[in-house]
């Protein structure tokens, strides 16, 4: 048994033993659980992939004369202005003004909120255009100016849902190509697409949310942020394997961090042909090895994690809940899965390569004493399930 304080003391003295979530598997096999639990202080987990429910709060400071923006665009991407005068919220999936979207199907969706966030972190000069109805205290009615992230008072990423614990494998059961947020899916189950870091993924290494909770310090694209709430659609109460690994989406995290500390290579705009725009984000989360049960759960391997294969031509859009079968991440990473007796080529949207890089970067920061662990101030619910949206008649 170790405490957060003991682990942080070891980090401070430069003596912490830190391994990544893939290294720990062999380490525990070699040393045994009891010995490893005494030796190892922290296991680092990570993920890099599309996280649509992301965005950022920007504060521009006040112009002379002042404006209370009632509508605004950054790089022609609409931002939300229903906040104080010069605060806006930029969402990752907001499409640039005048983008033809799917008018000429499948559309290209070249630029949107995710790309603005990438350009902002990259230090590029961006355009702000804002309108206002004008008031006595905020008389300016129109503004067009250019800024970089350095000019902003705050650029704070504020993501309602990141780090899905597990995720669907998308397949297309129809006879035409379909264009989804899981990429282009060829007809007749010709290919499949998955999206998780599997054995490296944060919440798959802490399936019961014993260490990752509200307040947990996380590595977000190089910045030190934290979990500020359970993520939207967090549903820890779904089906699990006997070892406790969720067999579907399950837990999620709401994360925040200062974008001024972020690195562009981990904040990347995405364009999905025929679907839309998004943001790929790199996140690392350390798991303190408080006891051997927590350590045991970080030893989860791709073979033990099951993902549901779902048809995105009918079952997903019609919300039928049907799962064709489950496959494990070892099979997924082989590039080929078997679905109802037929082999299907499978590709990933989540980058294991980047996740591995992040797990190592975070491990190095902890070893250097630059990243300390924080005990959650509240824990994520384990039993909740996800409610559907019921389309009702207007009540009398």
């Amino acid at each position, binding site marked *: 048994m170790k405490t957060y304080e003991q682990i942080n003391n070891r980090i401070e003295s430069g003596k912490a033993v830190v391994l990544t979530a893939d290294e720990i598997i062999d380490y525990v096999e070699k040393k045994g659980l009891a010995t490893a639990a005494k030796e190892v202080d922290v296991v680092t987990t990570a993920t890099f992939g599309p996280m649509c429910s992301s965005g950022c709060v920007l504060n521009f400071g006040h112009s002379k004369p002042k404006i209370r923006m009632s509508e605004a665009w950054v790089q022609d991407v609409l931002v939300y202005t229903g906040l104080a005068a010069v605060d806006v919220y930029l969402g990752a999936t907001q499409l640039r003004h005048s983008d033809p979207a799917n008018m000429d199907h499948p559309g290209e969706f070249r630029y949107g909120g995710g790309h603005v966030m990438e350009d902002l972190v990259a230090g590029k000069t961006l355009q702000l255009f804002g309108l206002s109805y004008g008031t006595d205290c905020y008389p300016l009615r129109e503004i067009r100016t250019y800024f970089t992230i350095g000019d902003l008072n705050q650029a704070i990423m504020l993501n309602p849902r990141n780090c899905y614990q597990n995720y669907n494998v998308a397949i297309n059961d129809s006879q035409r190509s379909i264009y989804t947020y899981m990429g*282009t899916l060829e007809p007749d189950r010709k290919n*499949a*697409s998955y999206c998780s870091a599997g054995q490296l993924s944060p919440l798959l290494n802490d399936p019961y949310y014993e260490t990752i909770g509200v307040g947990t310090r996380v590595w977000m694209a190089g910045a030190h942020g934290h979990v500020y709430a359970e993520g939207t659609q967090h549903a820890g109460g779904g089906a699990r394997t006997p070892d406790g690994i969720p067999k579907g989406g399950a837990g999620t995290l709401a994360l925040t961090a200062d974008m001024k500390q972020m690195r562009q290579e981990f904040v990347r705009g*995405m364009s999905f042909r025929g679907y839309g725009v998004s943001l*790929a984000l790199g996140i690392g989360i350390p798991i303190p090895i408080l006891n051997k049960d927590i350590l045991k759960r970080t030893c989860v391997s791709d073979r033990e994690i099951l993902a549901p294969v779902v048809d995105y031509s009918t079952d997903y859009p019609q919300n039928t809940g049907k799962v064709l079968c489950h496959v494990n991440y070892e099979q997924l990473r082989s*590039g080929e899965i078997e679905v109802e007796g037929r082999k299907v080529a499978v590709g990933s949207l989540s*980058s*294991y*390569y980047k996740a*591995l890089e992040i797990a190592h970067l975070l491990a190095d920061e902890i070893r250097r004493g630059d990243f300390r662990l924080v005990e959650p101030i509240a824990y994520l619910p384990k039993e909740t399930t996800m409610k559907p949206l019921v389309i009702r008649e207007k009540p009398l």
Partner: protein
Amino acid sequence: MSQTVTKKLMLFFPRCECEKPIIYHLVKDHNLIVNVYRAKVTPDEEGYLVLDVTGTEEDIQQGMTFVKTFNVSVNYTGKGVTLDEEHCTHCGHCITHCPTEALHITNRATREVAFNEAKCIECLACIRVCPFGACSSAF
């Protein structure tokens, strides 16, 4: 007889009035086997042609000398499709869409993605599916 080799080439046609049947002459006069992957050669516009040529080193060299007489430049390395290492996140989404395994996992442990230009048939599927815009075409 000398050994035959296959080379993948990209020909660049600057704005010219090249209306000669170049490919015909490569086959007929220079004994080359030609496999055109992709071409865009339009009068009064810049043009590109990506192809494999198979023949002896000598015949290929003479064929290219002939091609250059039309002010056409021959690129022995640069291809019509490129993977931008800076933009690639190695997610591997392109791999199931690449019909020839030109895009492939080069390291099973790290899942690093690499592009083997020699295998690329320029179908451009990767350009359509890469969410990061890491694949691009010269034309």
